């Protein structure tokens, strides 16, 4: 690999071009209209062509302004944090507020090796109490606190 290549910028350019191409493809469904009476497809066409052009510029500049290698991804942290939040969305209506918080805190805690069992329990208890106070007492959001299948709210 040429030592002047900036892998970050080249990938950035490629990403932008890909998004622009997808956008232009899906924009085929929308009537363009005329410059005077713009249809719903006019602004997207302008935007995505511009985006593609900028992507190309980033890519071309990236061929010569390096070297800058791609960063390593923290897959473990990334996966666990995103999963813990997605799980919250999936579980909230099923198992209620308190248990969802517990599950989310536990999954997210796996992302940081300095966590202790005691710390996680304390943190969950504190957050359940705080969120009950803020969101259920204070803001009155309509969510079951305990698992609904237990039969009481």
């Amino acid at each position, binding site marked *: 690999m040429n030592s002047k290549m900036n892998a970050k910028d080249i990938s950035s350019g490629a990403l932008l071009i890909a998004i622009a191409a997808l956008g232009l493809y899906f924009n085929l469904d*929308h009537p363009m209209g005329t*410059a*005077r*009476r713009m249809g719903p497809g006019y*602004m997207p066409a302008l935007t995505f062509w511009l985006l593609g052009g900028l992507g190309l510029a980033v890519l071309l500049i990236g061929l010569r302004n390096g070297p800058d290698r791609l960063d390593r991804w923290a897959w473990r942290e990334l996966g666990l944090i995103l999963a813990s939040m997605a799980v919250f*969305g999936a579980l909230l209506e099923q198992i209620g507020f308190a248990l969802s918080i517990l599950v989310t805190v536990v999954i997210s805690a796996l992302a940081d090796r300095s966590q202790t069992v005691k710390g996680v329990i304390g943190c969950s208890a504190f957050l359940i109490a705080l969120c009950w106070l803020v969101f259920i007492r204070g*803001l009155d959001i309509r*969510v079951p606190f305990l698992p609904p299948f237990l039969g009481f709210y």
Partner: protein
Amino acid sequence: MIENLTLGLSVALTFHNLLFAFIGCMIGTAIGVLPGIGPVATISLLLPLTFGVEPVTAIIMLAGIYYGAQYGGSTTAILLNLPGEVSAVVTTLEGYKMARRGRAGAALAIAALGSFFAGTVATIVVAASGPLLTSVALSFGPADYFSLMLLGLIISAVLAQGSVVKSVAMVVLGVALGLVGTDVQTGQQRFTFGIPELSDGIGFVSLAMGIFGIAEIILNLEKPENRNVSVAKVDSLWLTKTEMRRATPAVLRGTAVGSILGILPGGGAALSAFASYMMESKLSKYRHEFGTGAIEGVAGPESANNAASQTSFIPLLTLGIPANAVMALMVGALIIQGIQPGPRMVEAQPELFWGLIASMWVGNLMLLVINLPMIGMWVSLLRVPYRFLYPAILIFCAIGVYSLNNSAFDVYQTVLFGLFGYLLAKLKFEPAPLLIGFVLGPMMEEHLRRAMLLSRGDAMVFLERPISASLLAIGAIALGAMLLPAIRKKKDEALAE
């Protein structure tokens, strides 16, 4: 103006609004002290909580978080050499040196007093220039508006850190994300892929939380925690006569620099703090002392960043154009409350406009009281390890975004934007221009269509109208200047952290 300020004070001084201003200032100071969470993430986190209250109360609280963070950020910069906020990076240069010399108290005191003075002046600047700019803005046609927004986007990209081309691309990508949803004029669904939740567009809160809140947690977790809690001891907070005499001109200059730079889109607190530091290190009579703990190097930048954080409200309140990511969040907060920010806001919602201005000054006074005597409490906040902090941020994000529409879809959307934000960070993209583009995109499309309809499809209208033409010319010059290597290098130096 007196009449208006009285109206503003009568709004700001109600018990309810005072309470929310206080809460905002406290939260702001806290997150300012804590590294790893900034005002943008916090405000997007708290947006869902503000829907239940009056618009003016919501904005007062959110504004308190923003300028509170400027105060809090300087505390850790001085005592720990650890900037809590980007805008406090410069403060570490002289502030921490002062603390090492045993003048931590003086550095904290001048930072707070300078900030208070700057905040007061900036409040007056906002109050005076607001109605003036508004009356100018009311004469704008759709073409002028379009050009103004374009200029705002260009400048925010030019002043962002890193590559200008990539920042411009982020702006355009933001505009593209803003296209998702129902086309206002024809009712056609665009890029919704048959998902009913997307017909109202991508959730603003989900986008901001994902990119700034969630992605930031992952980025923080992958770096090992590095917080040495060897806090410098705080002695007397009183300034000596010499220190007072030396700091005063720096405060004045910093206030002026900050008030001006704050108005620029993309400028804001960090840039003005740096500009003020550069200025002091060239102009001060004691410039030979820079690097060893010169009080001017604390007084100037601290005044500048606080002045800037307040004057950056000017484009938002008068033109409806956000100058930075925090202001983009304010636009989001107003729109969700059913208020379209823009020149008509002063007329239509005087209590909101003047109430906010008055509350800024009240908030600054509160911050002075919150910060100086309670410094020990804020420092002890630093002992809260990040491993307790991030689950809390995560949970608040999750519940907050769910409570918007009581829908799990919003939570999933936030997860996706978290992933996207992480990807962008790994490729060295600046996320702030994206948010500004997202907010301005739909308004730009509307003005573009209206302008072209009025001109019967003639694009020359943008060059024929004098206001529009001059705005576009400024934008072209700003972009062109970035192509000159010498100027680009200066910018890189100024924004290097």
